[in-house]
């Protein structure tokens, strides 16, 4: 199974590269800009060369040799930086929030839904993506909404591409988990009956049972595989039809199957949790099952920041705009990224407005959320990493994205000032070395009514 998965991944990666190769083979050199490399500081008057969708050279303009025939982009007075990566969005799962028919956000029929694959619902043609792209967002994690304790498996996308397969750089990259008040089955806003699990006790017990069941399932499946192999091996061809395998075929359980890579620690689980005491509860469970955790939100964790640091897990802060509790200082949440980073925690920042993560219409504001963290104490370099390299690393794309380094995918943005400032205008976005048309449904409306 593991092998199969690896092969699938390879195939997928292969597909993406093939498609990229279909794009016109162009060499572009961005010369004279201020390069925010993220990985190795700022280069004033730098040059960056993109060849075949990858970064081929980065350095001082005086030192980088621009290949003959390259298209030269004069970037004097501009800032050049890696495409931004939003660690939590609902791109392609929603179009108009209030229009239920346009939403495939979560499957609330059960609380344990690891076998929901975002890849199966991702609507690549969503209008939300070009809108975000215009502000320099080139990659994102797409996660289901937060109704369920285990809501499904995320995808990692590129915000450009001819079709779904080209845009999904990785499917099932992480398991979307949630723990807290929201997942309790209390009949919901519309009323109705409360049902199990209607308390945190119920939620945790159910989760524990699910992971135990998956462990049992994994053992049974391994046993069945072993038997099947034995039965297959030395026997003659006609005899194998009467083997154990044929008589007692192992019935695959997709729900259980889906949890296995996470029980093996092969891929991360992203746990959405807001309250400090909820973090302690869910982390105890995660540690019991050796899950590879990324914490998400941690909005009201001010009292246990040292403990969070001691978990040695990365943290997504989002939205930074969530409200402090009554009688808390107004900046109790604004200062979280700084406080965590100060304690050595690897921090990412997501885009959402207060009110929860289902706000991908606002993904274009991702750089401003990072800037706001700077206003409240996060060092600028850390803030920039929190929306680029740190996100890439958390989701397994650290070697391909997130910084201006040779060999990485040429997702590069050109802006007329500090990317984290609300006043700055993005002038050009390159994805896999191709200049993306700076057009969205919104720019078309603007232009139509500006005539």
């Amino acid at each position: 199974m593991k092998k199969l998965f690896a092969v699938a991944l390879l195939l997928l990666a292969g597909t993406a590269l093939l498609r990229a190769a279909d794009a016109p083979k162009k060499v572009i050199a961005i010369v004279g800009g201020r390069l925010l490399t993220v990985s190795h500081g700022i280069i004033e008057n730098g040059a960056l060369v993109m060849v075949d969708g990858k970064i081929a050279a980065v350095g001082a303009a005086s030192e980088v040799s621009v290949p003959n025939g390259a298209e030269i982009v004069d970037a004097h007075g501009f800032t050049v930086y890696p495409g931004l990566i939003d660690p939590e969005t609902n791109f392609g799962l929603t179009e108009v929030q209030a229009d239920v028919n346009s939403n495939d956000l979560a499957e609330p029929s059960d609380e344990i839904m690891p076998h929901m694959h975002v890849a199966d619902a991702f609507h690549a043609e969503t209008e939300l993506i070009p809108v975000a792209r215009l502000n320099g967002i080139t990659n994102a994690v797409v996660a289901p909404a937060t109704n369920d304790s285990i809501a499904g498996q995320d995808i990692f996308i590129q915000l450009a591409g001819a079709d779904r397969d080209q845009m999904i750089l990785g499917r099932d990259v992480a398991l979307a988990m949630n723990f807290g008040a929201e997942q309790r089955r209390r009949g919901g806003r519309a009323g109705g009956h409360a049902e199990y699990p209607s308390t945190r006790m119920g939620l945790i017990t159910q989760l524990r049972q699910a992971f135990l069941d998956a462990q049992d399932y994994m053992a049974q499946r391994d046993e069945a595989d072993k038997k099947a192999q034995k039965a297959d091996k030395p026997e003659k061809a006609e005899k194998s039809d009467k083997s154990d395998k044929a008589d007692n075929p192992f019935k695959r359980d997709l729900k259980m199957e889906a949890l296995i890579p996470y029980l093996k620690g092969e891929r991360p689980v992203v746990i959405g949790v807001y309250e400090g005491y909820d973090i302690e509860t869910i982390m105890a469970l995660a540690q019991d099952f050796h899950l590879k955790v990324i914490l998400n939100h941690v909005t009201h964790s001010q009292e246990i920041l040292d403990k969070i640091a001691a978990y040695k897990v990365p943290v997504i802060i989002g939205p930074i705009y969530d409200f402090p509790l009554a009688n808390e200082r107004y900046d109790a949440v604004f200062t979280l990224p700084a406080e965590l980073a100060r304690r050595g925690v690897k921090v990412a920042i997501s885009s959402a407005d207060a009110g929860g993560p289902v706000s991908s219409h606002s993904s274009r504001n991702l750089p401003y959320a990072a800037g706001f963290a700077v206003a409240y104490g996060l060092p600028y370099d850390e803030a920039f990493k929190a929306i680029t390299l740190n996100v890439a690393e958390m989701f397994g794309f650290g070697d391909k994205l997130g910084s201006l380094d040779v060999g990485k995918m040429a997702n590069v943005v050109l802006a007329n000032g500090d990317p984290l400032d609300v006043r700055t205008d993005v002038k050009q976005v390159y994805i896999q070395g191709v200049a993306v048309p700076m057009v969205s449904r919104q720019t078309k409306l603007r232009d139509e009514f500006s005539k």
Partner: protein
Amino acid sequence: MHPFQKARTAMRMAWLAAGTAVALCAATSAQQAQPQDIVFKNATVMTASHGTIEHGSVWVHAGKIAGVGDTVNAPASATVVDATGQWLTPGIIDPHSHSALDSDVNEATSPVTPSMHMIDAFDNRDKALYQALAGGVTTELLLHGSANMIGGQAVVIKNKFGLDRDAMLFPNAPGSIKFASGENPKRVYGSRDQLPSTRMGNFEVMRQAFEDAKAYMATWDAYNAKAAKGDKDATAPKRDLKLEALADVLRGKLYVQIHCYRADEFLTEEAIAHEYGYKIRAFHHALEMYKVADKIAPEQTAIATFTDWWGFKDEAWDAIPWNAVMSMRKGVRVALKSDSNDHIRRLNQEAGKMVHYGGATEDEAIRMVTLNPAWIIGVDDRTGSIDVGKDADLVLWNLDPLSTYARAQKVYIDGDLFFDATAPGLGATHFTGAMHDAGGFGSDDDGNGEDGQ
């Protein structure tokens, strides 16, 4: 109780107690009389009315602005605030807020409820007021929600967080009434199979309401005429609060603030306003104003709009972030507003976005969150800019307030310091005790019916 939980609770209690103690100390010092004269020196003064003064001074006397310029003639006894390297702006004004109203935003039991008064729901200890104050907000128009075609009457507050309810009211502010059309009233009443479940129904409900009001006014006019002639048999008609409120609209006594999104609705609303003889002060949300701004500009109806919220419902599908600046260039007075307990804390950044989306000057941008919303509320002669004679509602920022990085350092209302970020604890200099937490997001229009509208 689980021992860990107990420990946590104890920690929280201790923390709260510490916070309260700090707040009490702060309050004690704040109770000292405010200085009669304050001079801010060497600030970058963004006046909102007449440009920016580098290294400027502002003199506050008895709660009013007494001087502004390169230098001012303040008395030697004035308290000096050295604002070197800092920015001074008028207080931020939000012309569309539902903060501090608990969940009493919509009386969604009838599409016409003009005699509801938001002051009756105003909770002056709501934490949202404090959080807005820390974002530099000094004045808010607290509006009824958008469930009804004709909702209730607004309350205008000065954000003097920590004072009692009546001390937070903006004295003698004009009255405003909230109208709405489009998806929200459709959804609320349509879901109950009631009128209005369409836009046709929307506007007919309004017209009928005004016909009722005209008839009511005529009855009173007839009675008053008889009574004036000394007719002793004349009997006074029954007073009807709802119809009296509508009559006040027709008499021009209330500013009409209309929630609507679509271009066609602006045109319909203006036509109805002409038909019944009232003026529309502002369209709120107004996300499609860029399509018909040239038609609305001559009406002198302003807009209070989001910068970049979009797609939360069908009528927000054509929203573009250039709306504000494009409309402004066509002569419409434009304000930015929050409709959100979140965005109200960073309206200065929303203004900053206008530099990005459409190339507003910094002067134009700051006006969108100060003087222009003041005009919408009808208090622009008293606040919204740094001009002599106006209320000393001022914010001192550590950086250019239009940047992402700016933080409000000190917030003054009527010359009195209400927030000081550098003070220990909450920084709310007049506040003691416990805040209330109404929950929710302070919006009646977040697309998912959060407040049931």
